[in-house]
């Protein structure tokens, strides 16, 4: 993260003379100036990744291969959207971590609910499952 360049008081981007310093995508000009090309490239990648995840279903992949591919494409897409479209890659880490770390706690909730639902499933199979 080389771009601690702009720390511009309260209101970024208000000046008309803020010319597009269309340098590399990492230069943090006044109020998030990045070349349009960057957005088009990310847009293209999102299309490719969505097509890939659709093809997982189209070709009917199964089991762990299917699940890991779905998760991989999902995480890549989510990462691209948050990092580039939502500009998180250029924010200061204090904001990025404040927003991105709390959702990680959801994974603990997932683990708890996996235990819970496996127990429920076990009990149901034991006492209530009717042969269909």
């Amino acid at each position: 993260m080389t771009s601690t360049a702009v720390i511009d008081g309260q209101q970024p981007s208000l000046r008309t003379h803020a010319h597009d310093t269309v340098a590399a995508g990492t230069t943090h000009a006044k109020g998030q100036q990045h070349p349009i090309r960057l957005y088009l490239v990310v847009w293209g990648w999102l299309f490719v990744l969505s097509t890939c995840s659709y093809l997982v279903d189209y070709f009917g992949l199964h089991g762990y291969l299917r699940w890991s591919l779905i998760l991989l494409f999902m995480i890549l897409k989510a990462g691209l959207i948050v990092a580039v479209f939502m500009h998180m890659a250029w924010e200061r880490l204090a904001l990025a971590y404040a927003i991105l770390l709390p959702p990680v706690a959801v994974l603990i909730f997932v683990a708890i609910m996996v235990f819970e639902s496996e127990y429920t499933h076990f009990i149901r199979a034991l006492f209530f499952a009717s042969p269909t």
Partner: protein
Amino acid sequence: MAETALTNPGGSPARAAGWQGIADDWSSDQRAFKNVSWGKAMMWIFLLSDTFIFSCFLLSYMTARMSTTVPWPNPSKVFALEIAGHHIPLILIAIMTFILISSSGTMAMAVNFGYRRDRVRTAILMLVTAAFGATFVGMQAFEWTKLIMEGVRPWENPWGAAQFGSSFFMITGFHGTHVTIGVIFLIAIARKVWRGDFDVERRGFFTSRKGNYEVVEIMGLYWHFVDLVWVFIFAFFYLW
């Protein structure tokens, strides 16, 4: 670090990066988010809370699906469409995904043109985004109609576990509501941009505050979040 208070708009000293930066920003007895306006910070915090809401929905869906002894309906078949005599699995959802991603692309470009103070392009791109969003909601209405006609209800469906219907209507319904609100939000902001409110610093009728083009970026954060949630719904509900 006393001299980096808010009252110092001109050249504040360079701030540390990395962990040192986080510790400095949070412990400085000032605002923690140094170069982020309150509007943007509040939108991020709202989105964080919305993340937890959708997480809870997806978790309840996971719990229902894992704990039922009845087989789960196969989404690949449920959401298949017959197009020109061909039976294509999940095609409607795939098209909806591409539409929402495209709307995110146009939104990102609208934010960019906003910061270049290109009023007309910003407004047009925002309206294109709104049109994509409205198309998405329309397709979702079509999907709901189709499923309801086929007998899907929150308490039963013809193919398997009864919880399929309640999870489906809950998750996609809540997401569709978000998209609808986003479309209204987009049109409202696009109108302001078109009228040049942010160039002449016209005061808003509700807040009496002067707006600026950062509003477009804040609006964009919400819109990209809607797209982001769809990525997870697509993966967990439709593909899993």
